[in-house]
């Protein structure tokens, strides 16, 4: 089952490349639906019988590659497939039939998903490096898929950032291998716990910093807004919703896995990601409040929302922190995908890229604006939504460990999110200026965004199963 989650996207990606976009679309959508089913089945299996392992080709570690799915990886797999399928349907309606972007779009999405799924299932540091690069290169390709000069420039900037990030990660892996002679995350836990020379600290620092760069955590966020704000809407949605989460997932994995003994020795180090996360929340929100282009606003909102994810690091002493982090990842993933999708529809329909050009869309594109609003509720952390549950968990954890400052950041961050979300809604509720035209858009565009947004809200009414899944180790 786990192997198929990696092979299936590779398969349909290659076929889509050979058969061309018109037939590739359907292959992709069928493939994604199958992946979604696989992810659900895997999650159900794990909840039932604990973490699962698969040795690829019958070769176990250290020679072969082991795939392991525990609650954390299964949750991330589920999130990825849940977002990818609706976005694929959206993308099918979004791109015009003869759009040159589609030639590469479908194969690249396939490779991207293969990279993501492999990353969530990998257990050795080098294998993770390969998946990171596969993921990064496919994502860069997607940013460039639009083909405009600005998009190419954004893609190049993104490429250099992601290459430096994974380069630092690889150097870290090299140092670890040089020290311990293994790259298995499982074996490393006890090895590093027993003895950690200074070199390992450097390695850990390099790896975490490299991954933070790829996650676009403040102050490494410089590449994200042009890349996510400039790409075609389905690409922006996919990148903002899942791709940046992958490197966050790795930071978390390393932090609670191999490097867990280091964080015990130097307890202050947990405040480093939290500090950057705090700055990200404030800086990202500030830029989103100021942004003039709608997609730029949403991209900066991603910078801010990623900050929340890093607030859990000082709280990891209690099990709830992981749950809060995953809840926030789900909330932001679903909501941000919905928001970019809705923004794409708004821009397509009005021909206006600016926030100021949105007057009157509440009346003319109610479903899309509703989707935007629901996604906004999740980002603001207002009930009932997954974002609210994440916020609740974070605040309660912060209070129980007496880290008041984290609770404060979460609350203020929510209010700042309200400022930029309602900046858009306020404009949308204004009466349309005379003479403005709205081109009709396919209903699929409106309803896929709505579905994603609704999911982000409805998860807020029932998070028990997800939390149960995350708890499986």
């Amino acid at each position: 089952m786990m192997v198929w989650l990696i092979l299936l996207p590779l398969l349909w990606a290659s076929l889509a490349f050979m058969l061309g976009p018109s037939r590739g679309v359907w292959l992709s959508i069928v493939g994604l639906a199958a992946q979604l089913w696989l992810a659900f089945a895997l999650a159900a299996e794990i909840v039932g019988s604990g973490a699962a392992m698969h040795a690829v080709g019958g070769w176990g570690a250290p020679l072969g590659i082991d795939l392991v799915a525990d609650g954390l990886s299964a949750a991330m797999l589920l999130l990825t497939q849940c977002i990818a399928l609706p976005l694929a349907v959206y993308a099918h309606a979004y791109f015009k039939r003869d759009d040159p972007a589609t030639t590469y779009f479908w194969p690249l999405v396939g490779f991207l998903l293969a990279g993501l799924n492999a990353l969530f299932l990998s257990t050795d540091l080098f294998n993770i490096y390969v998946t990171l690069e596969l993921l990064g290169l496919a994502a860069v390709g997607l940013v460039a898929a639009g083909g405009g000069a600005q998009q190419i420039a954004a893609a190049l900037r993104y490429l250099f950032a992601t290459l430096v990030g994974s380069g630092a990660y690889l150097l870290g892996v090299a140092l670890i291998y040089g020290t311990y002679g293994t790259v298995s995350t499982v074996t490393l836990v006890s090895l590093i716990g027993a003895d950690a020379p200074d070199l390992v600290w450097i390695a850990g620092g390099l790896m975490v910093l490299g991954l933070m760069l790829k996650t676009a955590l403040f102050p490494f966020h410089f590449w994200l807004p042009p890349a996510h704000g400039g790409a075609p809407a389905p690409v922006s949605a996919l990148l903002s919703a899942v791709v940046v989460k992958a490197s966050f997932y790795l930071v978390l994995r390393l932090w609670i896995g191999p490097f867990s003994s280091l964080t015990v020795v130097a307890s202050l180090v947990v405040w480093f990601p939290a500090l950057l996360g705090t700055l990200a929340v404030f800086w990202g929100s500030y830029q989103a409040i100021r942004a003039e282009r709608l997609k730029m606003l949403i991209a900066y909102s991603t910078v801010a929302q990623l900050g929340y994810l890093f607030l859990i690091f000082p709280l990891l002493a209690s099990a709830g922190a992981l749950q809060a982090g995953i809840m926030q990842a789900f909330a932001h993933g679903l909501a941000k995908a919905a928001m970019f999708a809705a923004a794409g529809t708004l821009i397509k329909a009005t021909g206006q890229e600016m926030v100021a050009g949105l007057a009157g869309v509440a009346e003319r594109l109610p479903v899309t604006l509703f989707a935007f609003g629901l996604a906004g509720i999740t980002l603001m952390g207002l009930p009932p939504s997954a974002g609210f549950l994440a916020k609740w968990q974070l605040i309660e954890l912060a209070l129980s460990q007496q880290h008041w400052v984290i609770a404060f950041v979460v609350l203020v961050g929510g209010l700042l999110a309200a400022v930029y979300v309602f900046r858009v809604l306020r404009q949308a509720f204004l009466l349309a200026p005379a003479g403005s035209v709205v081109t009709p858009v396919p209903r699929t565009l409106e309803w896929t965004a709505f579905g994603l947004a609704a999911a982000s809200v409805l998860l807020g009414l029932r998070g028990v199963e997800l939390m149960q899944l995350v708890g499986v180790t």
Partner: protein
Amino acid sequence: MTFNELLPLAVLASSLIPGLLIFTLPESWVGLRTTLNLSGALVKLALVLLLIVGVQAGESYGVHFAVLPGLNLSFKADALGLLFITLSAVLWLFTTLYAIGYLEGAPRRSRFFGFFSLCVTATMGIAMAANLFTFFVFYELLTLATFPLVVHRGTEASIRGGMTYLAYTLIGGAVLLTGIVWLHHLLGHTDFAHAGIAVALGSAYDGQLQIIFLLLMIGVGVKAAIVPLHGWLPQAMVAPAPVSALLHAVAVVKAGAFGIVRIVYEVYGIEFAQSLDLLLPLAIFAAVTIVWGSFRALFQDDLKKRLAYSTVSQVSYIVLGVTLFGPIGTVGGLVHLVHQGIMKITLFFCAGNYAETLGIHKVSEMNGAGRRMPLTSIAFTIGALGMIGVPLTAGAVSKAWLIDGASAAGMDWAIWVLWTSSLLNAAYFLPILWRAWFKPIPKAWPAEHIVARGWRETAWLLLLPPMITAVMTLATGIFSNNQISPLSWVKLIAEREYIHESIIWTP
């Protein structure tokens, strides 16, 4: 799922489902939309009636769902909740009728009625919430659902009003959330219970509980428009009249006041709150609000603004009643929750009628309005006299109990506050009545939209709701000792909240 679990959910569904369906209706399907609206309102009333009969017979209705491990979304329909539910369900019916008449032919009605129904759903959720978590969920939902209604007209002014409303309520919400999570962290749950839950913590936590109380009161105080958190209410007057009715009588400020009641009685417990010295500061804020609101109302020429400041003042009667330690004050406060709603909605319906029929928006334009629109003006007069507290009206009953409650609690200064407010009420309402009845009709009305036909001075759907609520204002005043009056129900609640004192009803 048993019947007793289903019933509270059905009450929620009876406005949620019509609301969601209405969103999908094309603008032109007036008939189906009206049918959905009214059948939803009537079904809800029937369900509420079932609840009332059941609760009076001692049945308990409740259901809960796990949202996260250790965190439940739970509902119960108890006597206190039913007071609010009944008020909202009854007034929702009339407001819906009124809104159908008011918005006839206006654009964006599907959106309007959709959010309107969501508002009422949120209000029902607030009333039936069985813990603070659930209360907060619906409290914020109410904020979100009212925003599109406040900005419904889509003009710059209405958007500005809406943004002010949001700024106040969202910040208030964040403060409220802090308090709730803190309490949840200390107690491990936030379930409402008679006589409170906070007392279980022991005296080591008194300081924290006082801070939490402050946070919670700021949170709900925003919606209850307690000075200095009241700034949004007069600004939100740009909304259409049915929305004002919703804000002032059915849902929003009531949700705030109701939140205060729940927190004081069923989270802290009135007796424990008294022992923590929490009631007196709250009483002082309520008193300041009562006087300040009435005072500001004096200087408003805009009719709806004057009414808005009047609401600021009147809602704090409820808060004041809550803080008067003793069952009599409790009764005065709680019964005013209902009475204020009935009277204020009458006044807003009438103000809407003046604006829609004759284009009157200002007090200074009211000259002779009584002769042109006698029925509306009679209703307005009844509402205004009720607000002043003239005998035979609902307002008189509330005030009598509040004053007795104040003297029973040994807070004689509160009596002076109430009398001052009554005088100010008279000072800002009586000139309006005088203009309406005794000044001559002007040569031309500001903008006459609807021409009188026989006794029908305006559209009948606009006329009917205020007349009914005006009659209710009189009926609740005159028959206050009847078995089915709000007052009797409130006595039932008070008997359940004071567990250590035996109650003898004297007045």
